[in-house]
């Protein structure tokens, strides 16, 4: 009796995971397959799942109809710049907050903690105002400027830096190392895991950013991938297969990065939670 009940329970478990697994993964598969179909195949009833011939030419058309190569370049430049500079400013800040004693530290800590609660959406429009005043609309500088530091990542790095014993810092100082040397020769190599995670998370969120670039760019050649994609989806109109091909182009690079670094990324996200 008990055994039979258990088996039904397991069937429910598999069914539940199976259904939600399909719901989660299917849009990705459908996107990739749909991007290789003909227009007729994407709009027939019953829906086509597997295209008869794989139309790679859809991708050629996407690149012909919109400057996706340029979007890629723009997105890569902005995501990479924000990531590198954010890492740099956060490492320096986190080092000061962890290893140095100074008057006003408590005050800075308080300000930083309060700012963590400010939603980005509340300041993004007035930031637009600042960037417009500086004449930086439609420039790379305008795209990256507000995102060159992150209190959030600074805190995240602090949790790695505090794990390194302060006696190592003292020893380095006695040996005559400068703070600068300590940061780059000891702190950074010893917190590699945390730095890689921050870099990955920052790069991915830069890659997927939407509202900010939507505000500060209106020239086609300065658009980022997601804005280009949204514009393309409106312009390409009924060309469903091309929309799906373009969507695939946007998603696949991130998915590749994700599959390679999935452990660091997931661990990083979970750790964020424990800090909060």
């Amino acid at each position: 009796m008990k055994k039979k009940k258990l088996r039904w329970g397991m069937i429910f478990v598999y069914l539940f995971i199976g259904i939600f697994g399909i719901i989660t993964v299917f849009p990705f598969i459908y996107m990739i397959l749909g991007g290789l179909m003909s227009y007729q195949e994407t709009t027939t009833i019953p829906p086509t799942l597997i295209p008869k011939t794989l139309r790679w030419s859809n991708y050629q058309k996407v690149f012909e109809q919109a400057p996706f190569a340029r979007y890629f370049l723009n997105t890569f430049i902005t995501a990479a710049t924000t990531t590198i500079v954010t890492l740099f400013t956060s490492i320096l800040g986190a080092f000061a907050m962890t290893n140095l004693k100074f008057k006003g530290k408590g005050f800075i800590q308080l300000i930083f903690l309060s700012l963590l609660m400010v939603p980005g959406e509340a300041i993004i429009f007035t930031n637009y105002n600042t960037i417009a005043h500086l004449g930086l609309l439609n420039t790379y500088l305008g795209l990256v400027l507000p995102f060159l530091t992150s209190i959030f990542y600074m805190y995240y790095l602090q949790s790695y830096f505090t794990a390194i014993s302060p006696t190592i810092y003292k020893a380095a100082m006695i040996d005559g190392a400068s703070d600068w040397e300590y940061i780059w020769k000891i702190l950074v190599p010893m917190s590699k895991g945390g730095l890689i995670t921050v870099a990955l998370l920052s790069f991915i969120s830069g890659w997927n950013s939407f509202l900010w670039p939507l505000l500060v760019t209106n020239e086609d050649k300065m658009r980022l991938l997601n804005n280009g994609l949204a514009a393309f989806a409106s312009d390409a109109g009924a060309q469903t297969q091309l929309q799906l091909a373009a969507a695939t182009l946007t998603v696949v690079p991130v998915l590749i990065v994700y599959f390679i670094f999935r452990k660091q990324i997931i661990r990083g996200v979970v750790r964020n939670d424990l800090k909060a």
Partner: protein
Amino acid sequence: MKDNQKKAWLFLAPAIICVTVFSIWPILRAFTMSFQGGPLIDLQFNGLSNYQYIFSDPEFWRAIMNTAIYSFLAVPIALIISVVLAWFIFSKIKHTAFFETMFFMPYVTSTIAIGIVFRYIFNGEYGLLNFLLKLVHLPQPDWLDNPSLSLVSLIIFGIWSSLAFNIVILMGALRNIEPNYYVLADMYGATSREKFWRITVPQLVPTLAFLLTVNLIGAFKIYTQVYALFNGQAGVGNSAMTAVYYIYNKFQIVGTPGVAMAATVVLFLFILFVTFLQRKLMKKVNS
């Protein structure tokens, strides 16, 4: 070692400068701008009239209502599904890492790109969802072009997007539960269900409280999902207008930044209030 190492300010300078210009200043500016009227290049003080405007604007109330309905439906539903999924993946099956990786995929992918796929699946004529509904003889509504359904479609899309983060955080919390609790429960012959309700759920309470507030705050700010699902609009006849969408519209499209900032201030204070509640709640839960 010295008690006041002034060089610290040197290391903090880049972060402090950036934060002052792009976080502190814009908050203050949003407050002052909310008392100003006119276009961006010619703002004039006009007292409380922006606040009067939004509170008497039916569009604003609709945006608030939609945001509230979305938040209070999508967040709890997604959370319940996530708890069940995380518990099943964690305790009932093998290949935990594989499933965790799979369920986390939506978190890293672009909302706009996935929105295109969902628009395609939701399509009234040739969409896959309606095809499946037809197979089981259910009505096949026009998910995207029927104003009364736009919020439902948005909620489905929202739930799909938010499972990923919830599951991964919950899995992290499940791994942190002392395994001996379960060993002990087994010794006393507890059933799987008893273990779930008596050990797992109570141990997950702090994580659930955390996820609830983080998700709610995220839901209050929903914007990109709307844009993605309705192709740059807020649904047919603005039927899926949300708070941030309203702000964006007033700021960028209509060109009344003062009104937009008044709405921003209201949203900001509300989110601050929820964050404050979360702190209180977490303190209570942890003690």
